[in-house]
């Protein structure tokens, strides 16, 4: 097991009476691409900004490469890329000025890669940042973050303003980047289908803490909707303790498996005390089921 690149212990953050992050623990390993999910207002941006040292937290510890932000050396800080949810600022600069200027602050900046991405993604180098559309501005900031060739890349809803074509291109660049330099990527998004394509782990922020944090493949192998058949309504018993959203019906019950199981789903079904019909869930369906459970 790799040593964690980010380690969070007991992190709490309140906005007046509202607890957004509550005693959150999370270890993130080198090379992972993590999709961070959560409802609107769940605290995803707060968490990502806390990781980026852009937002102070009330209590807890947060280290990057085993070092708290206060003592994190400049050489490590330069290996972090970040795209905020709202890409504002630098309106008076031109696209090229923006990239060249900010690139100068990163020793690992890859100018050829930046120019290549800019041309491929159709950004006019002479265009002013103020004249870019919302999506183009987001692309610009994504190019800036990727061209650092960062060891750690944090993206707060990076695809929110992008069209499907651009989203695909961005995701494939993300995969190439992580393959090339073993970057660690955390990105939040509401487009779950995109996450499935690129992430190897998924984290779900519920009630201020990471309630679900699993490998995507491991999760996808288990998550399913169960239809348990009988000639009478069935109460939840020990065998089905892992299932959530249990609903009794006249001829049995329905439930959902939302966490990876120790044994495979097939053997779980095979050994069930009653006949069980299984429907595999996509990550999007899983997200909806889990969200409903906590609603």
């Amino acid at each position, binding site marked *: 097991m790799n040593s964690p690149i980010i380690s969070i212990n007991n992190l709490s953050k309140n906005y007046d009476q509202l607890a957004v992050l509550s005693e959150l623990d999370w270890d993130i390993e080198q090379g992972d691409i993590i999709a961070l999910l959560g409802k609107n207002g769940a605290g995803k941006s707060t968490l990502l900004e806390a990781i980026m040292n852009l937002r102070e937290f009330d209590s807890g510890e947060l280290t990057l490469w085993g070092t708290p932000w206060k003592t994190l050396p400049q050489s490590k800080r*330069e290996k972090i890329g970040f795209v905020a949810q709202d890409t504002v600022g630098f309106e*008076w600069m031109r696209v090229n000025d923006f990239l*060249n200027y900010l690139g100068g602050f990163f020793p690992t900046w890859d100018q050829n890669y930046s120019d290549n991405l800019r041309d491929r993604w159709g950004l006019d180098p002479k265009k002013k940042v103020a004249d870019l559309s919302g999506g183009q501005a987001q692309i610009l900031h994504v190019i800036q973050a990727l061209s650092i060739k960062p060891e750690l890349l944090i993206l707060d809803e990076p695809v929110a303003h992008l069209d499907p074509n651009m989203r695909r291109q961005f995701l494939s660049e993300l995969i190439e980047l992580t393959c090339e330099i073993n970057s660690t990527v955390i990105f939040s998004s509401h487009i779950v289908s995109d996450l499935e394509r690129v992430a190897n782990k998924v984290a779900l922020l519920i009630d201020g803490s990471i309630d679900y944090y699993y490998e995507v493949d491991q999760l996808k192998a288990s998550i399913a909707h169960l239809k348990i058949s009988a000639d009478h309504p069935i109460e939840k018993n020990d065998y089905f303790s892992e299932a959530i959203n249990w609903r009794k019906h006249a001829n049995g019950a329905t439930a959902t498996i939302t966490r990876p199981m120790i044994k495979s789903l097939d053997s779980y079904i095979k050994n069930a005390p009653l006949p069980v019909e299984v429907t595999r869930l996509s990550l999007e369906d899983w997200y909806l089921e889990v969200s409903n459970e906590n609603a």
Partner: protein
Amino acid sequence: MRMLKQSIWYLLSHSWVTFFSIVMVVLVLSFMQFVLAYNDLSQSKGLQASVSINASIGFFIGVYLGGGVLALKQFYLWKINQRYRSNILLAFVVITLAFCILPVAFSVQHIGENYLLIFAPLCSAIFASQMVLGKNLIHKMTIGVLVFAMLQLDKLGLDVNSIMSVFLLATIGLSYAMFKDQFYPSAKQKIDNKMDTQLTSTAITTGVKPAMVIAFNHYIGIAVSKWVMGKKNDIGWSLLLPQTKLGISSIIYIIAIGIFSAIADKSETSFFETITVMFLATVILAIAVESRQMIRQTRSFAHVFPGEKHRALKTKMLLSLDKAYLINIAFILLGALGLSPLLSLPLDSSVLLYSVLSIVLTALVALPGFLCLMWINVSLANVFSYCGYLAIVYIIFRWIGVHSEQLWSTPTTYLFIVGCIGLRFVTQSLFYRQPMEQLIKNK
């Protein structure tokens, strides 16, 4: 070095129109220094004039560069990358020093033994930049009060060099704090904690605005919302909301006048009228800027007024803003009239009332015209139109000064009033001619 050069360039170029306006101001003030050198002024008068001019130059530079730093610190690197921050701050210092050397060169002959006065423009620039970069309203006001307090040190018998030493120490302290980023959190942090709650709970925020304005609007909004909302929960009220707050904010202007009047020299007879009129003349700018932000609100309901009905919406907008403007003026005027006996300040109320009338008429003529411009962005059109407005106000004051004895008996007064009413129709029709899309289009 390459990064420093680039940072200098981007700090200077963040708003070309403002930059050239400031360069023009610096050149004019430098020319005044040049003229001073050939005037037969006493040592103390020459020194006073020279230092005031230098400090003004520093102030303008400081405000402009403070705005540049503020724009560059929006990016996350400001918080996490020391190289980015130091580079920008170094660029800030280099530009400030470069701009402050020229005025100092002019004032050398007046300085004499008060050699520390050569740092006056630098101190002024640093203080002015902090007024822009300050974390919140209290922080900014504290800096202003600090300057006032230090200017009062001569009353304790301190000589000029000692006072300047205090200024220099304060400047060094502020510069260090800016470098360490202790009191100047980035934009992300600005909306931390309470501010976050305010952002989510304030029904109508004023777009991209400094956090202090959001906080200010929030508290004023809470205080007056029940009272204002009563029976006016319609589109007109929606447009008027921020202006209603501005109306309340006039009280703060009045408090400022009170404090300023209490500190300043009361022997100057026209002082109170001048200060009051200065505030009155700038109210339209505040209204116009705020209204341009608020007009964006109409995006969500402008479609309810299709075609010809746009005229009704525009009328509502204009009347709302006129009303807001008049509320502000009334507050300031009542405050001034109340403060005059309270603070024993001499006030020629007929001159004040006449000035108010002229300002109000001029402003009401100008308001629809201003609304046709993109007030959010600094543009040449904006700069010239506001300069034009101020020039007209200045001419009127000069005229009032000359004819103060027979203000109401001269036909020019009545001609002016009639002229203003006529011109209002012209600017109003200009406003009506603007396509609705143009009016509500605002980045």
